[in-house]
């Protein structure tokens, strides 16, 4: 059973100050040049909590777009290898919507599958998520089709839901959430408040579990994938704004005397992603790469990791230069699959 508290909007500054004073890095949605993004904040002045969706996800908090892993110092033939300690300061993600909160379960599943990941895991361990129920959504949101929802608490240590213009109810869901409240006891008032305001109405468009079951049948239907992917430009925009895409590259960068091994984001939509040194490419067509993207998220990850590779945040579709609209595509696939029985 969770405890509840009341958090006044006016106390957000106090909360952020207290967390900062306690050594926590606070990341929250902030408006910058007309775009809302998660940024480090030290006060409540720039908070943009009434946002629908940030352009990029919160993924970078635990899986940055590039990360130095190893440092090689080279003196002639002598090489010393140094681990670059992962930057994992205690971090509070404040005001992330339930889709972003849910994404960490997928990231954790990937990065801890059988073997650990010395770079991602410490960041996950240092993270406290203060979620915020969605007052508004848009046509690209489809969280309710993939097991989430605008007030879904999964992945949150605390979930905020607006009671009115000035107040949130704070549900304290985990020990970590409780510890956060203890860092800023003054910001939280006792009580549960009245009924929270209604959250965004995100109508389910398909059932992810059914889609997962049916997708293997659709794998061989080349026309389905070709039709959708013909306009795909093969850029990495969808993958890079996605909260659950984890494909990465590892490369070395060297200067005269030393070098770094860096991990960077990569994308299954890139033509050279699977290209062999021989020139052979197991997924040589864009339709095959698009299919991989869908299958990986909605069939392979559920089968292998027991998680969906999608939280229905809709960012991929908002950012796509050619309007690929994943939700619409999945809805159609689900209908195709159902009809093909």
């Amino acid at each position, binding site marked *: 059973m969770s405890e509840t508290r009341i958090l006044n909007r006016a106390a957000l500054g106090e909360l952020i100050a207290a967390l900062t004073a306690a050594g926590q890095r606070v990341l929250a949605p902030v408006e910058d040049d007309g775009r809302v993004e998660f940024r480090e904040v030290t006060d409540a002045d720039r908070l943009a909590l009434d946002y629908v969706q940030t352009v990029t996800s919160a993924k970078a908090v635990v899986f940055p777009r590039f990360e130095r892993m190893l440092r090689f110092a080279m003196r002639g033939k002598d090489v010393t290898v140094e681990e670059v300690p992962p930057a994992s300061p205690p971090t509070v993600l404040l005001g992330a919507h339930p889709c972003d909160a849910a994404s960490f379960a997928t990231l954790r599943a990937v990065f801890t599958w059988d073997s650990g990941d*010395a770079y991602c895991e410490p960041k996950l361990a240092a993270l406290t998520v203060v979620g915020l129920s969605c007052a508004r959504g848009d046509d690209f949101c489809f969280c309710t089709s993939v097991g989430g929802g605008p007030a879904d608490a999964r992945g949150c240590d605390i979930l905020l839901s607006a009671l009115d213009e000035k107040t949130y109810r704070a549900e304290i869901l985990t020990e970590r959430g409780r510890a956060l409240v203890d860092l800023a006891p003054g910001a939280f008032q006792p009580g549960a408040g009245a009924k929270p305001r209604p959250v965004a109405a995100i109508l389910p468009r398909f059932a992810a579990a059914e889609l997962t079951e049916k997708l293997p049948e659709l794998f061989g239907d080349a026309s389905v994938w070709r039709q959708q992917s013909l306009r795909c430009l093969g850029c990495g925009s969808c993958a890079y704004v996605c909260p659950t895409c*984890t*494909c*990465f590259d590892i490369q070395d960068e060297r200067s005269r005397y030393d070098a770094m091994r860096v991990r960077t984001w990569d994308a299954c939509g890139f033509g050279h992603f699977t*290209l062999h040194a021989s020139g052979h490419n*197991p997924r040589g067509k864009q339709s095959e790469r698009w299919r991989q993207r869908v299958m990986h998220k909605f069939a392979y990850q559920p089968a292998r990791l027991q998680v969906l590779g999608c939280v229905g945040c809709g960012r991929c579709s908002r950012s796509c230069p050619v309007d690929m609209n994943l939700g619409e595509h999945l809805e159609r696939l689900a209908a195709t699959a159902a009809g093909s029985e």
Partner: protein
Amino acid sequence: MSHECGNGHNLYVPYRMRVAKVTAEAPSVVTFRLEFVDPADAERFDFRAGQFGEYSVYGEGESTFCIASPPTRKGYIECTFRQVGRVTTALADRDEGDIIGFRGPYGNVFPIEQWRGKKLLFIAGGIALPPMRCVIWNCLDLRDQYDDITIIYGARTVADLVYKHELAEWGARPDVTLYTTVDPGGQTADWQGRVGFVPTVLEQAAPAAANTIAIVCGPPIMIKLTMPVLARLGFEPDQIFTTLENRMKCGVGKCGRCNVGPVYVCKDGPVFTMAQLAGLPAEY
């Protein structure tokens, strides 16, 4: 297999390996013998035939190859690679005594314990002999556990045959039947082996399928043309093993490259039976 390398908690830290011996095998193909710099690593390290690793030149990157030496030979590992890209070019530049990185072993294994008492038929083409060499030597080192061992190996030209000294050794052994072949036109004046493509030589050799395991590694076209011959000889798909070499970066199921359908080559492979591959899309 959950072997992890490096200092135990960060799998991306490679073992430091000393290049102990460099052998030129064929044009741009080299074999390295690698010894652990830290004896404690050597002590801890264990692998089985079929597994692979990530080999790195510090400052140039990592490249994925199988371990080409058998686990029965302790204290070192060997890898054979063709110089193609940035990492393999840098690797080929290493001299004896140089330090490179290795992390692994990763992936599944040839189930050689289950092959005890059976005949083994190894069929390889070109640069695909290295993954097979590991298991060939593994079985030869445990020779009394297996029935007849036949090896069919072909390359484009005589120069392209790798492990020439070992081919001579295998050919001289009474307990191994070896067929070496080169593509028509690839022979030299003093070539003693056969001339013809691997599937043709297989057809001529016509090994019996009963109680036999076939292990096939080679370029896709060779595999494609070899399968019907094996079928005609009576081999069932679950009697035939191969290894896949999809591109990888992490080796441990995270980087997203090596999927063949739902299968991760790095974790579920690289060793597969043809029966398993028949159920997968051709994304390799």
